[in-house]
């Protein structure tokens, strides 16, 4: 069963429909891109998956979103667990008002994760991941000698996973707001990964970034899809072509067409998709 399965989802802003009758399964461990013109409901779809739409009392929802078989809008749903499971990256990165280090440990502390204290648990977890140029066993040995070894290693691991470690390792206690915007977005990625989500939702994560930082983020996504399902909203067609395995095309609140990336890009069926891809509408 796929992680995310959406059935007849409707979302309203007041009486204004924002999403109309969306039904789709999102494939696991792939990068799924949601594309479409501005205001077509891409972000709304993304935010209704981790129920960030709840924060706006004018937003109404009906239909079903099943995540691992459980209806996230159902009476038994636990929104805190849901949001922990679905990591979220916003369009403009916002560091939390604290140090770089604390930005990473914030989530694990809130959720009282054991690996923040236990080196052996952390080590077992890190072994499941591949991180470039990282000698885990040596790091574990060093960690044993330090007072906050586990949390230090956790911070290092996630910063490495997000491709930020080398740039910040000497100033972990500096305010996160001093980082460049591209670094902030990678910090946001590390912070999101640190609560150990299974799915990553990214809302135009590179739109505020310079091209180099954007490339770095895309590279991280490519690496991360082995362990995570990634859903990315983008209005940059070329970005979707570069990284997406699966594509959803939306138009005016409707899900017009979806399927594997090659199929959507090379052989779109719906005239609206064709018009969008050819640049007639944008």
């Amino acid at each position, binding site marked *: 069963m796929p992680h995310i399965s959406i059935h007849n989802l409707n979302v309203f802003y007041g009486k204004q429909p924002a999403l109309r009758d969306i039904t789709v399964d999102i494939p696991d461990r792939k990068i799924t891109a949601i594309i479409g013109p501005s205001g077509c409901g891409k972000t709304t779809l993304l935010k209704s998956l*981790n129920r*960030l739409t709840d*924060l706006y*009392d004018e937003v109404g929802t009906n239909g079903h979103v099943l995540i691992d078989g459980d209806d996230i809008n159902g009476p038994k749903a636990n929104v*805190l*667990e*849901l*949001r*922990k499971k*679905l*990591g*979220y990256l*916003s369009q*403009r990165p*916002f*560091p*939390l*008002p*604290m*140090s770089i280090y604390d930005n990473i440990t*914030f*989530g694990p502390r*809130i*959720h009282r994760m054991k690996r923040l204290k236990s080196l052996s648990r952390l080590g077992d977890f890190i072994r499941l991941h591949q991180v470039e140029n990282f000698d885990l066993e040596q790091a574990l040995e060093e960690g044993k000698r330090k007072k906050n070894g586990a949390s230090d290693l956790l911070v290092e691991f996630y910063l490495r996973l997000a491709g930020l470690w080398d740039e910040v390792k000497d100033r972990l206690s500096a*305010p*996160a*707001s001093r980082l460049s915007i591209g670094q902030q977005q990678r910090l*946001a990625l590390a*912070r*999101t990964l640190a*609560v150990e989500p299974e799915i990553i939702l990214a809302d135009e994560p590179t739109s505020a970034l310079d091209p180099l930082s954007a490339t770095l983020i895309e590279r991280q996504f490519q690496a991360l899809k082995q362990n995570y399902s990634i859903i990315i909203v983008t209005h940059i067609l070329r970005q979707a072509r570069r990284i997406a395995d699966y594509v959803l095309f939306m138009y005016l609140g409707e899900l017009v067409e979806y399927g594997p990336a090659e199929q959507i890009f090379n052989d779109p069926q719906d005239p609206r998709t064709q018009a969008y891809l050819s640049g007639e509408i944008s």
Partner: protein
Amino acid sequence: MRRQIIEEKIFKALMIASLATVFLALLAIIAIIVARGAKAMSIDMIIKTPEGGYYLGKGGGVANAIVGSLMLTGGASIISLALALPIAFALQREYIPRRIARVTRLALDVLWGTPSIVYGAFGFVIMVYLGIGASLLGGIIALSLLMLPIMTRAMEEIIRMVPMQLKEISYSLGTTRLETTFSVVLRQALPGVCTAAMLAFGRGIGDAASILFTAGYTDYIPHSLLDPAASLPLAVFFQIATPLPAVQDRAYASALILLLVVLLVNLVARLLSARFSRNIIK
């Protein structure tokens, strides 16, 4: 073209003139207080309470009023802070519907504009009900009533300025409202919260009407909450009302002390606020 340039010049001149008026007024106030107060200023003024015949020009000082003012305003600040912060948070959209928040804001604005003598009279009624006379406690109650709306409203404005996206980020990590409020929103708003507390403190320590009946006046330093308490504004008031120029000068010296206390407290708050600003997101 010509007309527009002249218009521009006239308005520029008007702005400079009004700015100059503000500065001149401030300078004039300080100049007069310093010029007249310096004559009567001495160490005795600060460390001694009035001795026999003080109001006829004999020895002593206004230590009773300095300590009284600090106790009154300090006590009222603690009470206001304890109430204002929760109210300010409660007024945010996550906690109560916006319509109720709007009505509450209006009510607070009305309270802010209420003349302080009304708070004095109201505080007096409460004291009669509680069966206590003019006392430190009575003054603290009346001053709290005066300071609470100012503090709440100022804090609420600051807290409302915390970007929604920052809260979204925090919620997306699976935090509860309480965790987001304390760990993220409060941190971000802390410098502003300091400023708000300061604003209310400045207003409270300078107010005479609300404590006239409620705190009373005494030549002694209060030893319990039920003792009457002197205050700097009333020290100014009583001394300036005497016919003796020497005692009138002491009124200016008292005003100077009041000014310095406010300045000092402001300075401390600025320092604190700068410290708290280190991590905030701009």
